[in-house]
């Protein structure tokens, strides 16, 4: 099951660049939350702070607290433990090119030392079914490389890979921006189904997408979170003038 996320006084830097300034928000469990805003507004940096991927860049720095469920991720745990509980899907599909479809899905478990073949088979099948890819690949699981699939299939493979380690939260950084409309709609359907089991945070440039999949939406601008409310309110009656300007297309 998903858990809620509480972010308090979060600040992040790339070198001298203060990319996130004093972010406070509560992301509800088992819902999809969309983050919108113009390029460079800090929304990607924000999700990368939720699984401590931000700090993998040597010049990056973070302060503040992030609680995922009852875990204070910057105080109580190691990055690798958090990343097993908080899955991530990236903008461009990034399957492991030398691995079979099966091994891609099983990678998170295998590389953490889990080797029970029987259980792995079950988890791989369940994850591929949950990511709506099973029927397309079930005959080639061990024969084909993950890189041989189409872009949309690769992205669903990456979702299956993230689900296989049984996370509580799924972060998606513009997961459909490199995909065609048909693949995009498949990913959106998937998000709709997955949010009953996981807390989903999705960064998107596409406002219709945010409106379609998310209950809550946050608007980021210049490293600050301008507004966070129900998606319906953000798109119909935003409280802040800047939010209104953005969603009506006056900038960004």
């Amino acid at each position, binding site marked *: 099951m998903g858990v809620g996320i509480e972010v308090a006084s979060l600040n992040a830097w790339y070198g001298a660049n203060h990319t996130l300034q004093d972010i406070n928000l509560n992301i509800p469990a088992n819902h999809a939350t969309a983050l919108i805003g113009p390029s460079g507004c800090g929304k990607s940096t924000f999700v990368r702070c939720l699984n401590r991927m931000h700090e993998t860049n040597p010049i990056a720095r973070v302060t503040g607290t992030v609680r995922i469920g009852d875990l204070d991720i910057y105080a109580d745990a190691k990055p690798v433990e*958090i990343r097993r509980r908080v*899955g991530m899907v990236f903008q461009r599909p*990034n399957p492991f*090119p030398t691995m079979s479809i099966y091994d891609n899905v099983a990678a998170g478990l295998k*590389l*953490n030392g889990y080797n029970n073949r029987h259980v792995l088979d079950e988890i791989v099948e369940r994850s591929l079914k949950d990511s709506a890819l099973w029927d397309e690949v079930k005959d*080639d699981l061990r024969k084909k*490389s993950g890189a*041989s699939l189409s872009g949309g299939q690769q992205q669903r493979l990456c979702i299956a890979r993230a689900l296989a380690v049984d996370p509580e939260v799924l972060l998606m950084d513009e997961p459909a921006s490199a995909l065609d409309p048909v693949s995009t709609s498949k990913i959106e359907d998937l998000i709709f189904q997955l949010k009953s089991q996981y807390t989903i945070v999705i960064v998107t440039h596409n406002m219709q997408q945010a409106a379609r999949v998310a209950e809550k939406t946050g608007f980021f601008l210049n490293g600050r979170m301008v507004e966070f409310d129900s998606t319906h309110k953000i798109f119909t009656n935003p409280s802040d003038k800047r939010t209104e300007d953005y969603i009506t297309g006056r900038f960004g």
Partner: protein
Amino acid sequence: MVAPLLAIFGYLIYKGASSLNWAFFTQIPKPEGEVGGGMANAIVGSGVLLGLASLIGVPVGIGGGVFLAEFGRGTKLANAVRFTADVLNGVPSIVMGVAVYGLVVTPAMPFSAISGGIALGIMMIPTVTRTTEEMLLMVPHAVREAALALGVPNWRSVLSITIKTASPGIITGCMLAFARVAGETAPLIFTAFGNSNWSVALNRPISALPLEIYRYAISPYDDQHRQAWAAALVLVVLIVAAVSLVRYVASRGVLKGAS
């Protein structure tokens, strides 16, 4: 590119093929001046020397490349290692032979297969290191991020993901280094020394095809000249065969669609 290769091959076959016979592969050299005999000891000796060289050059070279690309990036030590590898690559092979002679060949460890293997192994290191580094740096950042985002520790991600993704290029680098030292003569003169008798003992002088080619080519006997040509042909064919075999074995595990 193709013309010189064909010219070399054609001339080697023209001069060497006629002297190839069963005895060449099964017998050891006859005493000076006698006709016949073979180079079985040199063929096996080359195999032993190259095996020893690979045991040293491949792990040390790959280890160096992994350090440069993954763990030491941007550090002073990494710059020093990279500079050393480049300088080592430029050391003339005869100097390498003399240096190993001075440092390794002692009364306790006389001319031997081991010292020859060390000289060839050291010569392999820079090529293996630099190709390993370049191939690892070509692995997309997105692939590393994918592994880290699954909660895989960095060292594990490097070993199981990055190196595996780069492995076709790394194997090519190892084969380049192997093929290069397979024909080296100068480093062996002062180390492996050569041996006209049957010997595969690691602590004794050992024969090698390049050494025999050199020795026979400057000898006064026609029969030895012919055998030198045959040995040159065999050496080239064996190098091509070894490289092809490794490539074939390495490519068998590759899946459909993997780049």
